[in-house]
């Protein structure tokens, strides 16, 4: 199996002084192509931290991270950004669409940072997610499900190998959540690796692998 994400000896402490807490303690993990892996655990267990480290949004205290065979450690900020643009897509619980832009403009904005030709995929993604009718609408006028679908489209516009989703169904009703889950499942069918942090049983039910993060350990 091709390893799209590899974590080795990953350690991270949050807080300082007496409030310091080791949320990741020597974590090893691999995610292969075509695999949807769910990470569950109590609130504050470090699930989101794990996701952020995997995507190069934060720095670990120890260990290393490789995405699509490329190590993240030691890279400059612009180099990390380029790597994210080309290999990683993010989906957030709160969608995080830019309020002043329409749904389609949000997707097109992410395409500016990626590989040449990414902009041509915007229309196809919009159509594939059945968002053509609301493509020109701003997020404030969209439903939660529509916003999250635009967010998924944004995550996929640069055709990344790896998708990292932080509670993607957390703010959605069951029906909307199911649609989003279908999209993430379809992404793995296309050969991508999807790592999902979730509390949603519907997600864990459709995951290829479910891991629990507790006391800094992934099992």
């Amino acid at each position, binding site marked *: 199996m091709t390893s799209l994400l590899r974590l080795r000896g990953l350690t991270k402490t949050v807080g300082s002084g007496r409030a310091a807490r080791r949320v990741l303690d020597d974590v090893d993990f691999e995610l292969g192509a075509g695999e949807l892996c769910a990470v569950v655990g109590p609130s504050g267990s470090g699930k*989101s*931290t794990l996701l*952020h480290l995997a*995507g190069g*949004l*934060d*720095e670990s205290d120890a260990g290393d991270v490789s995405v699509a065979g490329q190590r993240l450690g030691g890279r400059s*900020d*612009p180099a990390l*950004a*380029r790597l*994210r*643009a*080309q290999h990683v897509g*993010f989906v*957030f619980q709160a969608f*995080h669409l*830019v*309020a*002043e*832009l*329409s749904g*389609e*403009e949000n997707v*097109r*904005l*992410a395409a*500016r*940072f*990626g590989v040449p030709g990414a902009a041509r995929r*915007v229309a196809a993604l919009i159509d594939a997610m059945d968002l053509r009718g609301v*493509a*020109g*609408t*701003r*997020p*404030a*006028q969209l439903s939660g499900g529509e916003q999250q679908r635009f967010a998924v489209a*944004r995550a996929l516009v*640069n055709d990344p190998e790896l998708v990292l989703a932080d509670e993607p169904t957390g703010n959605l009703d069951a029906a909307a959540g199911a649609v989003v889950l279908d999209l993430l499942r379809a992404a793995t069918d296309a050969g991508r690796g999807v790592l999902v942090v979730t509390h949603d049983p519907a997600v864990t039910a459709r995951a290829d692998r479910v891991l629990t993060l507790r006391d800094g350990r992934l099992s």
Partner: protein
Amino acid sequence: MRGRRDRVLVAAALTAAAGLAVGVAGSVGFALATGYDRAAQRSDQPDLLARFAPGRLSALDARLRRLPNVERIVYRLEVNRIALAANGRSRRNGAVHVVRPGRRGYAIVAGRDLGERPGEALVERGVAREWGLEPGDRIDARGLGRLRVAGIALSVDNVAFPLATVPRIYVAQAEIDRRFGADPDPGANLALVWLADPDRLDITLAAARPAAFGLRTEQLLTRRGVQQVIDQAAGIVIALLAVFALVASACAGAMLAAAAGADVRRRAPVLGLQRALGATRRQVIAEQLLDVAVVAAPAAALGLGVGAFAAAAPTSALLGYLNEVGPGLALLGPLAAAFAGLVAVVVAGAAWPAWQLTRRPVTSLLRGGDLPPAPARRRTGGRASSTGLLMLGARFALARRGRWLASVGVLAVATAAVLLILAVADLLVSLRDDPGTLGRRYALTVPGTARDAAAVARVPGVAAAAQRSTIEAADSFSLTQPLRVVAYPADHVAFEAAPLATGRRLRTAREVEVGLGLADALGLRPGSLLAIQSATGRELRFRVAGVVRALENDGRIVYARTAPLLRDDPSLGGPIAVRLERGADRGEVTRRLARAGFVGTPTGAATLSSRSFLAVLATVLRTVALAIGLVCLAAVLQTLGLTTRDRRRSLAVLRASGARPRHLGALLAGAAGAILLPALVAAVMLQRFVLGPIVAGLTADYATLPLGVRALDGLVAGGGLAFVGMVAVVLATRSSIHQPIAAELQRDA
């Protein structure tokens, strides 16, 4: 923690920048506004100073001691056209004041006063500065030989050398007696009069004319008249400095208040938590204000101190030219007031939103102050519109309309002020170098008599030559109104032609043209009678033919024919004004004149002596402009900082999606452009239609100033704003990319 530190630093920098601007403009303005009074007090300036034709002291005293309201009179002998030389510098038109025991009418600023030691002199402060003289140095005076400089004196009866063209020294009567023998009734031509009640000067003046009957009164100068002369020397530029001080203060105040308010709004959840824990509104507000004041106070003090320090040297030079005295420790009072004002503005800017926020329900505060999306004014359907990063940044900046308007307003006013400064600086350069600014058409002067004019006119390249005579006189009915008479044998328009405001050009020897400044002061209009008391003490009467817009002497000028002045004083002379033929090279004509035996002097609009003064004024203006430029930088930085703060999550998502620093820079450049471009346009309009006309109105008494916006000045201002924007974008981008993406994603907006 880093984010909080950055915000504190930005707030402190903003306050310090405001303090700098206020410190520069305020210290300059205060020093100039109070300099004369300090100098007059320090130098024990007499209330009245009268110059007469030389005579016996006893004769003078017999007339003047009968004047009412007089406390003390001291007499001096002023000897003119004495060659003075020191340290390789010299002037042939120096003046020596022979000082008798009693009140001095000057202050010793270095060294000591004249005493019993022989061979000593005091040197006027302007001369000492220009010629590099200190106590103990030597100065040569024709007729007196080499004298030792005992001290340096400050006297406020005129502006300082070289602005006043006559260098002056003081020697004791005892020195003259030693050299030439004691005279029981020495000569005197200068009376320094101190009044018992200065507020009743008019009584003394009214008695002065009949008392001086039979004496040739050359000049009668009151303290107020001296102040007018000195104030005129600085002209409109000093008034403009006060305007700029107000502009800088207003801009700084607006930005500080906006920044303080924004910071309070951002801390809404903290305020909510405090309220939830039981703190009263007053306690919450007081803590906010204390937080703000703790940052603002040292920053304001630093900015004010640096501003006052930066302005100290050019202000001191300016005061030196005006024979005025710096404020010294007296500046602490206004600086303290400015400090209190700045801190008060910051605190007030935080107090109002804090008051508003604490009125909201606690739960509302705890949810935080998310930036609501701008209301969708129309649904954009169908095709997606272009979403360049620049445009996105502009949209971010425009999302907060109130803040955008405030930022554009502050920048527009500040930039308009800078445009005005550039226009005035251009004018100063013109005054220094281009005689045409004053309406002068002659390019050279050569010393000579009226008979020499014909020979000068025959030199190739010379279009015309005529003797230009000037006398300093006073209005006969108001002796405190000094004026300058410029006379030519025939039509003066060929040599200088200030634009006509009303009436017509003079045609006969009984007519004159008067400057607007004088016309306003004396209520003159075409057809009015002008009575002048000349140097001989006689009264000359003219009919006003026209009123002209003249800058020279701040418009207190009279153009006349030479004939009546010659009848009054046959010894009247003056240099020969030389007008060049079109296309003639001034340097070449000067060489031809030299071969013909005439030494030509180039004509600037300013005299040689005032060019350095104009340079000092330009330095002061540039210092104020720089301070205003820093205010602009702080304004743009503040706006970008607030924008990135509002949009931190959006920016974090962009970075997570692969946006590099240059992408963020482009976005912030769009935000900066959304403020700077409209600000530049508004600034040009403001300067063209508001500030420029206001300032031109200030000088309308003197001249029509060309205060429009030149293309070059607009480019300079635009370039300056672009530079400011670029620096702000770079700093804001660097600050933004240093924020951890993960942390930013989890923050509230």
